Structure formats: C-alpha cells, structure tokens
C-alpha cells in the first residue's frame, strides 16, 4: 500500500508547523535573513542614517550654544576657556561682524537655524527609515503570501488556516516592532555618543562619575524586568483564567441555570477576580517604583553636577557654561539606557516571530510537477479514465480501492454515495491536488502525472460546494482576470446559465462589487454565478460537487436549467445530491466505502434494487417542490 502514498507525506511533519521553535534568544542568522528584504531600500536607509547623525549633532550643538556661547561668552565674557565650543563662539563673532548685530542675536540666529535643522532632518530620517522598513516588510509579506498560496492541499489538510494567518499578520508586525525599535534605539544612541564625546572633553572626571549611574540604571532595569516578569506572568494567567471562566459560563449559561450553579460559579469567579486584583496590585507596586526611579535619576545627576561642578569651577577647571551643559545633557545619557532595557523584550518576541516566518517561507512541500510536461492539444476530446485507482491520505485508512471507470468525451457521469465514500477524493485527484502514482488517471490517454498541474486545471472547470467568490465586481468574478474573456463573453455566459436576471437587477449590474465569499448573494445566486464563470472559461471537462443546501424552488429550477446548458458538449462528472441531476446523467456510479459498488443508467440501477435504490429513496431531494417528510 505504501507506494500509493502521497509523496509529500513522509517528508513533512506538520505538527512542526505549530511547534515551539528553537527558542534561541538571539538568533543573528535571522537578522541576516531579514536584510535580504531591506536591501532594495538600502539607499533610503543610508540617507536616513546620515540624517540622524546630522540631527543628533545639531541637537547637541544647540545645547552648546546655550551653555558655552550664551552663558560663557556672552554673559560671563569668557572666550579662552580650554573647553570645546565646536567653533560656535567663533561663528558667533563672525556673524556679529558680518551682520553688525549684538552677539546675543547672532547666537539666537544660530540657535534658530539649528532647531530648524533638527526638526527637518529628524522628520526626514524617520520618514525614510519607516518607509524602508514598511516597504521591506510589505515585500516580505507578499513573498510569504505567494509561498503559502502555492502550497498543496496536503499542506492545508494538516495546518489550520489560522496558524498561517498569524504568520502573515502578527508575526510580520512583530518584525516591524523590532526593526523600528532598533531604528529608534540608533536615534537615541547617536546623540548619546555625541553628547558623551563633548562631556568627556569638558570634564573627564564628572563624566565618569555620571557614567557610574548608567550601570545603576541598567541594573535597575534588569532587576525590574526580572521581578516583573514573574508578576506579569501571574497577571496574564489570572486574566486569561478570568476570561476563560466568563466565556465558559456565558456559553453554558443555560446549563448553569438549570443546575442551580449560579451562586457557586459566582464565588469561583470572585476568587479568580480577587487573585487577579492581588497580582495587579503587586505589579503596579513594582511598576510605580521603577517608573519614578527612572524619572528621578537625572534629577539625582543634577545634584551631583552642582556639587562637583562648583569645585571644578573654583579651580578654573570648568566654566559656568560647562556646568550648565552637563545639566542639559543628563537626559541624553539615561534615556537610551532605559529604552534599551524596554526594547529587549520586543527584540526577543520578534526573534520568535521571525523564526516562524522563515519556517513558513522554507516550507518546501509541493505537488510534484513533471520535469518535461506534455502539452495538451488545443481542443481535447474529453475522455477521462480512472484505471485501478488506489489512494489513501494516511496508510491506515484507504479512501479509494481499485476504482476503475472510463468516461467518454461528452459523457455525463453522476457519482453518488454516502459521505466519506470517496467521491470528493476522486475529484481532487482529477485536479491533481494530491500526488499519486503514474498509470492511474488519464486524460485523453495522457497520464495526468505527465501534465503540469496548471495546464491540467485550466482544462477542468470545477464547481465546488463551498465555492469561493473573489472580491471584485461580478464581472471580475466571471472572467477571473483572464484577458481572453471579454465583457461580452462574460455577459453571454451569464445569460446562458440564467444568471443574467438577478445580475441585471443589482444596482450596478455587472459592475456590482462583491465581498469575499459573496455574502451579499444568496446561495442560489452564487451557484449561478459559478456556472457563468465555468462557462466563460469554456473548459472541456466539467466537475461539479452539487450544493446540498436547500434553495427555493424557483431558483432551483433556474439552476437545473443552467446546469443542463453548462453540461452540453462537455465531459461532466457530477457529485449529485439532487434527483433531477442524477436522472439527467448518462450513467450513475455508486461509490461505497471507496469501492465502485454499482454503475449503470438510472433506470438500470433502480431496477436492480441495490444500494442505489435505497439511496434514491432516502437521500435525494426532489426538486419538484414536494419536500420529503422530515428534511434535515
């Protein structure tokens, strides 16, 4: 049996798609992979980096203008202090001479220019940075989507759509947070180093004393994170048990009320609510202390500067402006350290997200395509042959057992059978949604495995029960972006299958936009639209999985008529649920537990009083309007 297994099965453990990944905290390899998507936008990133440098330098110089130029040069009259002024005093003197204004106005002018430079370059830096990141991640998401879009059915059978969703949305978001966070860290650290350079050249000792506070902040942040991690976990857990408890009770409220459990459940909820409150209290105790601590740090620095600076000034080691400069730089020193501590969490979360994204991108499961696909002729005869088909999704449960049937070109075959008899699997194999062995299914005597799945699928028009309406207009949904299908041809197709009536009654006719899944259309209308879509594409082979939902009699008659027209001159394979459909087929095949139990015309099978006979009595909905006594 194993040689009939889909080839993809052995290669992939789908539980892995869900699993907690390596959990490595710092995965530099991952960052390296993200770079690939950033590359096209590198010029923006380079310019952005230059701009942040300009902005930070200007911001630092603004402080120099206040302390060194205004205080030292203008107010105190000190010009030859050994302390750096970055040429600002000279610039002021030059401007004084050139413009013939007082020094204070010259300094004001410099300050004005600098503040405009900071604002403009800062803004442009952020725009370029965010632009590059947003675009890069958009491309990454696009690639991810394209990759997922082409994974085979076997993949989607195993992995829930929700898991993939999170990767396309949340995980890419987390990467954004990380890249943006890294960007803003750079935006904080560049001024940090620029300020540090100036401070060091002003007073090495005072700078070193202040720098001693940095590890204090770092340690405080570290310990705070450590302490809060546990508390936050408790808060999170208690919140989720609160929600879970409430959700469960809401869903089972009638059982609760019938069991007279209201009081007891309320007490249980109160307990959880209380412990949640307790943990919340604990977490804010930590959070407020930490918050106030980081707020106060720069103020403590101020005390140190005044005390130490005074001594330096008396010994003429520092100027008055130098002391003021230090007080102004305090914030530039501590903000990035605090921010770094906060960014680490984001970084770790993003690592996990990145890992999930790349795992999805690396998932190489696919349908095997022939190395040298055969080309089908322009027009097929339409003969389909199933030759001793054996198939199973998993080794323990074979679905199709030695199914053989040949459908002549233009013939209509109805397949009937209970749920799980293998009807849908036959259709799926015909569309090559799963890999199967050579020599089992033939189209015009060509082995399906010799055809490229795309080529094959364009020859087979499939109408599934749960069919998919793409957002876009009605017309888009008929033509499906095929440039070969003109508006006229689409309308013609709609007319033929009786869809024109309801379409022309819509406010915008063929240009009415549809939402995904076509929820603004009724079940019957969607069916008619699906017919029009197939007819417009004009495939040689029609595969229909008839919808089971009950539809009003009038629409039902339109559908039956539309289907009749659709089947004309086409090989049709129908999974039938309606009596009418079966009666119109040339032959009926009864599948029972994956075996062809009966095959023949409707009348023949009825006469033989076998499985088909009982099925006929029970399962088919008569569309003539009479309802069976107790329909589902």
């Amino acid at each position, binding site marked *: 049996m194993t040689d009939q297994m889909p080839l993809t099965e052995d290669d992939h453990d789908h539980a892995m798609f869900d699993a907690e990944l390596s959990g490595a905290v710092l995965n530099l390899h991952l960052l390296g992979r993200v770079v690939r998507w950033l590359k096209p936008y590198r010029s923006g990133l380079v310019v952005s980096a230059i701009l942040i440098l300009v902005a930070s330098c200007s911001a630092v110089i*603004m402080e120099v*203008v*206040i302390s060194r130029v*205004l205080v030292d040069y*203008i*107010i*105190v*009259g*000190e010009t030859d202090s050994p302390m750096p002024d970055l040429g600002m005093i000279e610039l002021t003197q030059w401007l004084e001479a050139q413009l013939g204004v007082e020094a*204070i106005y010259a*300094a*004001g002018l410099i300050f*004005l220019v600098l*503040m405009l430079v*900071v604002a403009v370059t*800062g*803004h442009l830096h952020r*725009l370029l940075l965010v*632009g590059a990141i947003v675009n890069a*991640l*958009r491309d990454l*998401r*696009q690639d991810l*989507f*394209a990759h997922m879009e082409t*994974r085979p059915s076997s993949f*989607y059978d195993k992995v829930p759509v929700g898991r993939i969703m999170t990767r396309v949305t949340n995980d890419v978001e987390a990467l954004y947070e990380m890249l943006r966070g890294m960007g803003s860290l750079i935006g904080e650290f560049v001024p940090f180093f620029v300020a540090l350079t100036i401070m060091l050249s002003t007073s090495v000792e005072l700078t070193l004393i202040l720098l001693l506070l940095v590890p204090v902040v770092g340690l405080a942040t570290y310990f705070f994170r450590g302490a809060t991690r546990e508390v936050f976990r408790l808060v999170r857990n208690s919140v989720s048990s609160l929600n879970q408890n409430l959700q*469960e*009770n*809401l869903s089972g*409220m*009638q*059982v609760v009320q*019938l*069991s007279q459990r*209201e009081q007891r459940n*309320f007490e249980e909820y109160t307990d959880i609510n209380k412990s*949640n409150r307790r943990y919340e209290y604990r977490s*804010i105790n930590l959070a*407020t202390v930490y918050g*106030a601590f980081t707020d*106060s740090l720069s103020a403590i620095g101020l005390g140190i500067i*005044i*005390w130490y600076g*005074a001594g330096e000034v008396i010994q003429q080691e520092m*100027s*008055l402006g130098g*002391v*003021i400069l230090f*007080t102004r730089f305090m914030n530039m020193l501590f903000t990035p350290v605090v921010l770094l501590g906060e960014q680490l969490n984001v970084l770790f979360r993003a690592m996990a997200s990145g890992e999930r994204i790349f795992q999805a991108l690396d998932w190489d499961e696919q349908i095997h395509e022939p190395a040298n696909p055969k080309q089908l002729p322009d027009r097929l005869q339409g003969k389909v042959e199933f030759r001793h088909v054996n198939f199973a999704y998993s080794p323990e449960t074979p679905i199709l057992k030695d199914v053989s049937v040949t459908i002549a070109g233009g013939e209509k075959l109805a397949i009937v059978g209970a749920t799980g008899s293998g009807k849908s699997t036959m259709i799926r194999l015909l569309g090559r949604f799963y890999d199967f062995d050579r020599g089992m299914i033939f189209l015009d005597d060509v082995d399906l495995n010799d055809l490229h799945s795309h080529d094959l*699928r*364009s020859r087979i028009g499939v109408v*599934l029960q749960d069919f998919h309406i*793409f957002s876009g207009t009605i017309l888009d949904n008929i033509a*499906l*972006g095929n440039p070969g299908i003109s508006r006229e041809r689409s309308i013609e197709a709609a007319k033929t299958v009786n869809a024109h009536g309801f379409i022309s009654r819509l406010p915008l006719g063929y240009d009415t936009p549809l939402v995904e899944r076509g929820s603004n259309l009724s079940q019957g209308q969607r069916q008619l639209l699906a017919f029009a879509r197939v007819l417009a594409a004009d495939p040689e082979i029609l595969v229909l999985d008839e919808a089971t939902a009950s539809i009003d009699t009038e629409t039902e008659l339109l559908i039956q008529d539309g289907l009749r027209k659709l089947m004309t001159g086409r090989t049709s394979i129908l999974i039938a649920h309606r009596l009418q459909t079966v009666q119109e087929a040339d032959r009926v095949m009864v599948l029972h537990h994956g075996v062809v139990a009966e095959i023949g015309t409707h009348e023949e099978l009825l006469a033989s009083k076998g499985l088909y006979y009982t099925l006929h009595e029970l399962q088919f909905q008569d569309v003539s309007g009479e309802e069976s*006594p*107790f*329909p*589902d």
Partner: protein
Amino acid sequence: MKSLLRLLPFLTQYRNQILAGFVAFFASRFFEISSYFLVSMGIDEIAATYSGPLAEDLVPIVSPSGYSILEISLAIIVCVSLRFVFVVFARRAIRRAGIGVSYDLRQRLYAAVQLQGTDFFSRIGVGDIMTRAIQDIALVQRLIAFGMIFFVIMTYAPLFAVSAMLYKSPTLTLLIIPLLPVIFIYAYRTTKQLAETSRAVQERLSDLSAHTQENLSGIRTVQAQAQEENEIKRFWKTNDQYAQAFYDQARINSLMMAWMPLFASFSQLTIILYGGYQVMNGQMTVGDLVFFFACLNMLLQPIRMAGMFVTIVQRAAVATNRLFEIFDSEPEIEDKPSLKTPAIIRGEFELKQLSYTYPRSNEPVLRDINLHIRAGESIAIVGRVGSGKSTLLKQFTRLLDIGEGQLLLDGHDIRDYPLSQLRSQIAQILQDPFLFGEPLRSNISYDDPERALEVIWDSAEAAALRSTIEGFPARMETMVGERGVMLSGGQKQRTTLARGLIRNAQVLILDDCFSSVDTETEEHILTRLKTMRKNKTTIIVSHRVSTLRHADRIIVLDEGRIAEIGTHQELLRKQGLYADLERVQTEGGSFTDRAAGEI
C-alpha cells in the same frame, strides 16, 4: 460624556485613596519645582565664585543665597527623594483605585449576566459580552488609572511652573505663555488625526487578515481555477494599502515628533534672547535662566498628553455606556414564587392554548398547544428542525417564559413555583452537549460537586459511560478540555445524559440527546431508563423511531402545532407523518444509518 457620571458610585469606596493620591501628587510637584529652584540657586552660587578671566584680583566671594554648595546639593537630593516617595505613593494610590473599580465592574457584570436568558444572549452575543468584559472594563480602568493622573499632572504642572516663573520674571513668563494654547491646539488636533489614521491602519489590517483568511480558506478553489497568480497580484493591493496606511500614520506621528520640540525650541529661543538680555543687565541671574529652561519642560510635558487625555475620556465614555447596557438589563425570567405551591413536584403538566413567539419575530414558534402529561408518563416528541420542539421543552424549566396560554404544573401556574425548586426537581438535558473544561467527575455531578463518587459512577453506568471512563487513564478525573473537545460527540452526549440522570429528578427532559450515540448503545440506555424512570415523568425529543417507540405517547410537532399524538401503534395505523418516517428509517437499513440519524 454624561455616562461617566454613572461611574461615580463605583468610585465612592475609593474616594479617600484618590484624594490622598491627589494630595501626594501636589506634594510631588512641589518638590519637583523645588529641586529646579535649588539647581538655579546652585548655579548662581557657582557663578558668584566664578572669577572669570577678567577678575584677576581676588574679590571676596559673597554667597548670593547664603547657603553653601554642599548644602544646596544635599537639598536637591532630599527634594528628589521626597518627590520620588510622593510620586510612588500617588500613582500607586490612583492606579490601585483603577484596579479596584475594574474588579467591581467585573463582579457586577458577572452577577448581571447570570440573571439573563435567551433573549439577552441573542441580543448581545457571547463574543460581544466578552469584548465588554475585557476591553470596555480595561478602558474604564485606563480612565481612572491614567486619565486621572494625566488630569492631575495637567492641572498641577502649569500651576506650579507658571507661578514659579511669574515669581522669577513676569515679563519673560508672559512672553512664553501665548505659545501654550497654540501647542495645546496642535497637540489636540494631531492626536485626533492620529486616532483617525490608527483607525485606518486597523481597518487595513483587518482587511489584510480577512483577505488572507478568505483566500486561504478557499485555497482549493483558487488552485482549482488556477488563480494563484491573480490572487497573489490581488493580495499585493491589500498588502500595499496596509503598508501605505501604516506609513501615513508614521508620517503624522513623525511630524508631531518634529513639531513638539520645535515649539519648545521657540520658547527656548525666547528665553535665550530676552532672558540673556536680562542677565546681562543684571536683572536676572544665570541660575534664573536655567530655572526657566527647566520650568518650560515641566510646562510642555503635560500639554503633549492633552490629546491623549481627551481620547481616553471619550473612549471610556463609550465603554461605560456599553457596560451599563448590561447592568441595566432586567432579569428576563421573573422569580416571584406565590408560596402556595407544593414543595415536591409530582410531574403532571397541563398545557392550555400555549403559544410562543420569540421577541423581535412575527412568526409564532408554538401555536395553541393543548396537552396533558400525566405524572409518571413518558412522552416522546418528534418533528423537523424548527417545528418548535426545543422551544416547547424550554418552557418546562422556564428557560423561556410562557408566552400566551397556560402551563400548569401539578395544577399550579408554573410561574408560581420558585425557580430554584423548578430547576432542581426537573432535570433537563439540552440539545447542545455542553461540557465545562473540568474533570468528568465535576461535569457529571455539576449541580452538586460534593456528591459521593459512587453515585457518580452509577449515573455514568446508566448513561452507558462506565466502560468508556474506565478506559481513560485518569478515569473520573479525566479533563475533558474546553467544551469537552477531548471527547467524541457520542461521549459528550452520554456525559450530559449522566449529568441529567444523576439528579434522579421526578421530571426528566431529554432534548435530542442520542443523535451521536449509536443505536445499539441507545437501546441499552433506553431499556435501563425504563426501569429507572418508573412512575416518573420523562419527556424525550428524538428523530429516531427506535427511540420514539419506547414512549407511552408520541407527539408529532409540525410548524408549532401538534400534528399527531398517540402510541407508536396508533400513529402507524394513522398513515401520517410518523408512519412515513418509520417506513423511511426501517427500509434504509444499515447503509443509511447516517442519513437517518440526520433526519
């Protein structure tokens, strides 16, 4: 906004705490401005000792304040420490109040929903209630915890900063103040703009999620129609729109990040130019200049938050409305016992002209039902989906209140019984086999967790569940998972059956509890039930003739009316709906088992 006033009663028990918080905030701001004041004093001290390049000769140093640098530095540290203590106390007090209020709101919400019935839950779905319980309560908590803190900061900071500045230099202060309303208006408008763009981002994001979800759910169709390429192109549009929206938001955010410091710089420029002059003229000191810079910071900080504050208040107002919609809902089922009803229910029901129409619907579900169920009788009900079976059953335990007509239980109006008596002496098993995420033992003995284990095993036995449970490694302690996901459909149904049987009530109502149980097991259970339920009223809904035939009488419901009533034999002879059903189900044989189960 008015709705926020309704929160006041929730605040009263925390009022001392909140008041203390306000006072502490006041103190913290006082110490903050004092520390700036001291810094400026320190700088003036330094300036005085500073000889400068021109002062070659030794001038006797006169301290302007009369305090030494060391004293001033220590005073700064003291002020900073005191500020630290008061800030911690104040924030803690107010945030605790926020936590407390959200605790109370949750309690209130839980108590309120427990009194509600079907109509309420169809009006406000479970998902919606959850959103209110999670998000709306969080919004109110934010209002109290952060909104109040913002409010306090926004009041105190300008108060202290402006008065201190006025004290130092009224003219310079007046030169700075006109910029404040400009900043305020800018901050407010930008915040609104940001809220709009962030809504746009949210919308684009949910478009993106919906697009991905829809597309991947229909992946088979997409591939069957060979539409992958088109779909990837189409996704590009959604994807790009999201990126665009995101970029727009970042742009506005960045603009704000550029403007805010620019405003501050304008004020700084004013201080440089005017203040610089004053210092040179000897009307201000260098320390005053530094003090002004510090006050400016204190003044501008809260104004930036103004927009955020407005948003918090607005959102909390909407949230409060949504919460009170739940709190204000009257209990659907009135519990007003007449106190004249017997203490023990015998189980005789009399339905007179009973009709029921769901709220907000025109079509009655039950029409003029007349039925007399004798105490100890077993009744089976059959009918297609929507014929009113479940609605009828829910009247017996008042999960739905009586519409028109009368329902007498042992001769008394059913509404005269206390709800607790009704629901403890009538055991009803609902159609949906709902299980709680608890061990099997607690699920079976849900109404009374203290029951002896033996009793629980007995009822499991009666529901043909004993061997199944014995097969689980943890036996009765097996966790069934959320909504019982660990169990099969049939196992879930049998567990709910055991949950009903364990109460050994005088009246037992089973709403289609065997649909996932195979016929053989069902037969076994029903046979046991017959002896267990002797002389006790049993009402059972089923689609299977094999189940129905066991009952004393069978009722066929059709479009809310009793279409046929009688024993199995009587109805077969009648050649009506029941006879049709019987024929279809028996002729089908084993091949149609599944189909028959669905009818």
